[in-house]
């Protein structure tokens, strides 16, 4: 029997949290990130006001989604582009495959896009005989390793330069000595440049869809996004419906806030606006421009007024970077397209609460994610909402439901509670005395099997409280 998503999560998390090399790489990367973000926020006169402004923009967009999507569609068509509305990943992939087939596309270059990961576009195209090149350096590296992205912003953050150097020697046949980043980048560039000029189709995501002007806004740091969207004769932008924003001037807030939260930069190196195919007399740009608007569960989440704001997410990755759970278990352990707190909140909505409700517990509920979210999504409370919804939907395990009923009964009866505590202390003391802490018979095994046993108090809190009252 194959392991469930929850079982795989627990197994992978246990392995990764004990992998000290992995933890050191992540810690090193995140320490640099933390310092850059602090510097980046200091560039704002009022960072909190910026977050609030971005929250307002996204609230307005998401709560008038139909209006802004139609406005965006109208403008794109007026610019000579095509808009396709995909209810799910299959429809999106089929549209792009059919387009590629009609146009005789044999090679596709992709810039980084989490939505295309969500719908498994690359495997679908490869299955149709189309060669797909990931051109973002991090994505290119994980593609060579046949791995999904590790992080929504930095897909290869789990690897050090030595590992990448070895990978390039093995997979690209490059004669690389040492792990000099310049040499590594040059090797990737040599390979990818040929792909850029051979590709008939470029596929990108979109950071924002600007309704009032029908533009897509892309934030990248490597320039590959511009090559993907301007060199091949067809450009397809695949994006979630929630990416629409009302006005061009909203980017004055969203772009710097996204860059600051994502990497600590004031603005990403390449901030690009794309408004359709090449016009007569223009020297470059694609002959065809297509936008695929993907629903894939988003409209269902929209209907949940309590959790609608989850659709405000601008995919900066700040909640992942601050999360103590992510910092220990890393991105791949989640087994999802979107990792960390936002992934734990979003995935049960996109892929089913019964299979992914365990992610709601991949949190200490410390609230760090909420405190850094640039659009002020109340992430840790949404994890609680998901837990509650899973319990209401009856998707929790029978043993868990029984345990909570018993707990509820005990907690409502003080004498039984006191007796249970007395019994538990004595039982555990006996087990620990026999050296069975962390063994199969230890009820505290989940905690004790990897740690020293928790010291047992000699008396109950109630007794200590009474004594305290007597002495005061």
């Amino acid at each position, binding site marked *: 029997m194959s392991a469930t998503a929850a079982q795989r999560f627990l197994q992978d998390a246990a392995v990764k949290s004990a992998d000290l090399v992995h933890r050191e790489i992540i810690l090193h990367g995140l320490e640099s990130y933390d310092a850059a973000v602090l510097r980046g926020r200091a560039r704002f006169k009022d960072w909190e006001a910026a977050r609030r402004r971005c929250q307002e923009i996204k609230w307005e967009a998401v709560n008038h989604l*139909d209006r802004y*999507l139609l406005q965006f569609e*109208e403008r794109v068509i007026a610019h000579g582009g095509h808009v396709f509305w995909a*209810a799910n990943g299959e429809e999106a992939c089929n549209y792009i495959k059919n387009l590629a087939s009609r146009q005789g596309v044999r090679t596709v270059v992709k810039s980084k896009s989490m939505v295309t990961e969500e719908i498994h576009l690359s495997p679908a195209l490869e299955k149709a005989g189309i060669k797909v090149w990931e051109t973002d350096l991090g994505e290119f590296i994980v593609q060579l390793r046949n791995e999904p992205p590790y992080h929504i912003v930095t897909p290869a953050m789990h690897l050090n330069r030595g590992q990448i150097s070895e990978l390039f020697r093995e997979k690209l046949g490059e004669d690389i000595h040492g792990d000099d980043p310049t040499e590594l980048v040059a090797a990737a560039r040599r390979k990818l440049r040929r792909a850029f000029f051979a590709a008939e189709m470029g596929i990108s995501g979109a950071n924002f869809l600007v309704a009032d002007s029908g533009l897509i806004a892309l934030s990248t740091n490597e320039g590959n996004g511009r090559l993907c969207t301007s060199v091949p004769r067809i450009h397809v932008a695949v994006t979630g419906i929630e990416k629409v924003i009302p006005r061009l001037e909203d980017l004055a807030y969203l772009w710097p806030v996204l860059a600051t939260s994502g990497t600590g930069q*004031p603005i990403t190196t390449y901030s690009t606006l794309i408004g359709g195919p090449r016009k007569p007399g223009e020297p470059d740009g694609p002959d065809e421009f297509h936008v695929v608007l993907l629903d894939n569960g988003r409209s269902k989440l929209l209907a949940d007024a309590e959790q609608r704001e989850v659709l405000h997410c601008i995919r900066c990755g700040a909640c992942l970077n601050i999360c103590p759970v992510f910092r220990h278990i890393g991105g791949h352990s989640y087994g999802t397209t979107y990792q960390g707190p936002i992934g734990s909140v979003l995935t049960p909505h996109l892929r089913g609460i019964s299979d992914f409700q365990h992610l709601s517990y991949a949190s200490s509920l410390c609230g760090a994610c909420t405190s850094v979210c640039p659009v*002020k999504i109340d992430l840790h409370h949404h994890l609680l909402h998901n837990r509650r919804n899973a319990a209401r939907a009856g998707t929790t395990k029978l043993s868990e439901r029984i345990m909570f009923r018993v707990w509820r009964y005990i907690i409502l009866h003080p004498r039984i509670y006191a007796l249970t505590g007395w019994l538990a202390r004595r039982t555990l003391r006996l087990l620990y005395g026999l050296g069975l802490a962390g063994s199969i018979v230890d009820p505290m095994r989940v905690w004790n099997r990897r740690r020293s046993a928790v010291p047992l108090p000699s008396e109950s809190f109630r007794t200590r409280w009474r004594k305290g009252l007597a002495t005061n």
Partner: protein
Amino acid sequence: MQQTENSSRDRILERIRAGLRAPAPEPAETSPDRVIFESINNPLQRFQQECAANLTECVLTADTMASALQLAKVLESLPAGEVFVQEDPSLRSLIELAGSSRPIRWSSQGAPSEASQATVTLAETLIAQTGS
């Protein structure tokens, strides 16, 4: 209006409209007197500072001749090969003044060749806040 044939379009829009019937709580509005970005008193100076932070070399020149000399200096520093230049009358005269012996490919002649060593363009706006 031209429509891409798309059977899911109306279904998605219908689902969105149905979903939005339940209102979500509005966020507290930003106080209008809260200033998000520092005001910039000297935009040119700030632009230059940001350029330095972005590892961009920004050179101020007094007139067209000085600009042409500066451009010639930059072009001379590059390895041999073609330079791609945006088709524009002011750049035409600047390149002429620069007197570079390099092969020039104008944007009106089509896309740059892969071997182009540099691109010369105008800038419509300089953004002081980010050095963009």
